[in-house]
């Protein structure tokens, strides 16, 4: 174990290795590490931001859903109203139609019965004339006895 010139060469070797490290190792490694740190920080900030945005979007969506639900309820109410309106109207229309038809039918009936009565009256008159002529064996002049016949018809 002697002190010798190894000392000097070791010293030179050390300086060269330090220089290598300073030039070729330290800067790229530190640069990469710093850049990654920045990227991670950015990523974390972005995720925070995204979370906040998601929260906001959720609130918005909730509001929209509530609004939609309200609107839907309104529409259903309106539809119900309209439904009953239509129903009422239909009912009114139907009853109006019914009464109209009933009235018409009644009128028809009255008319028919009047007509029948008229016809009956007429036939009665002719029958009466026929009968009378047969009874009298003599032609009854319808015109001569008009007055009498009319009186007879109205009495029937």
């Amino acid at each position, binding site marked *: *174990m002697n002190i010798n*010139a*190894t*000392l000097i060469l070791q010293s030179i070797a050390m300086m060269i290795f*330090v220089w290598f490290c300073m030039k070729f190792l330290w800067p790229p490694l530190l640069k990469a590490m710093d*850049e990654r740190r*920045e990227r991670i920080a950015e990523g974390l900030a972005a995720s925070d931001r995204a979370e906040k945005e998601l929260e906001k979007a959720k609130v918005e969506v909730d509001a929209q859903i509530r609004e939609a639900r309200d609107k839907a309820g309104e529409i259903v109410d309106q539809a119900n109203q309209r439904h009953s309106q239509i129903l009422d109207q239909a009912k009114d229309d139907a009853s109006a139609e019914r009464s109209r038809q009933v009235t018409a039918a009644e009128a028809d009936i009255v008319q028919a019965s009047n007509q029948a009565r008229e016809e009956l009256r007429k036939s009665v008159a002719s029958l009466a004339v026929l009968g009378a002529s047969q009874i009298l064996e003599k032609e009854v002049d319808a015109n001569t006895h008009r007055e009498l016949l009319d009186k007879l018809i109205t009495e029937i």
Partner: protein
Amino acid sequence: MAGGSENITTGEYIRHHLQNLTFGQHADGSWGLAHSAEEATAMGFWAFNVDTLFWAIVLGVAFFMLFRNVARKANSGVPTRFQSAIEMIVEFVDTSVRESFHGTSKFIAPLALTLFVWVFFMNFMDLIPVDWLPWVAQQAGIHYQKVVPTTDVNATMGMAITVFILILYFSIKIKGVGGFIGELTGQPFASNSMAGKIAFFLPNLLLETIALLAKPVSLGLRLFGNLYAGELIFILIALIFTAGSGLIAAGLSSIFGEHIPAWFWVLATASVFATLWLNLKGVLDNKKTLWLLLVEMLLIGGLAFLGGQLMHFAWAAFHLIIVTLQAFIFMMLTIVYLSMAHEHH
């Protein structure tokens, strides 16, 4: 096993392990490798410890390649595991520098990183069993091989002196020549009067010079001392383990006599590998495997094998802490000294 010849003494074994491979000028004027410790000493200052320099440079290049490999591909995307590991070291050094060094410098942090990793690698060589690399060198015809550069005082002091030069450089750069001299002579005894300043000039200079010189000396010798002591203990453990003398080594010799046959080691290794393999295949559970390994260890090596291995393992585990800690201390002290050089007192 260590020295090549079968019957070297314990002292020779240790001395052999602590001798650097030295290249220098022989007494007859020719240049070459020293063949003995005496020859190496006789070469004087202008000699080089080839093994120290070789391993220091190999490990320095390994450090550079390892980090360059990551630095070249480094980007801000998702890092690979290896990149993360390298970046953890860089981050650790960067944090240490930021905490201790109050000032801005593009130089201190790379310096600290280089010192930390390089010194750690050089220290780590200590954990390779002491006989392996010297044995390989022996086969290649190289007689001396000390593979841990930091157990060579030249290497540690070489680095400490570089740090010392940096201390002087930064002191003068930041404070100017006058400021630096003022720092050396104006404290610790301070006076406002001219007479007092003259009276305290010499004592101050003496004390401050000692304090200044103590920095590189302590820096270099601390690292050297720790690693040298650790190395020595590994050598002693290896001695107990391999030399075949002493009480606990008696286990093997009592069965096989002086020479342990090769088939024994082949069988022993195969049985341990087989046990571990069966464990990995799921045939044996962990508890059974441990018991089986223990039984095998006892059968294979007797107390000598188990004792030597356990001691080696225990010291290696402890030494791992020393290796890391000393690398860290070397780095931290360098940062602190350079930080002090940057500050005005």
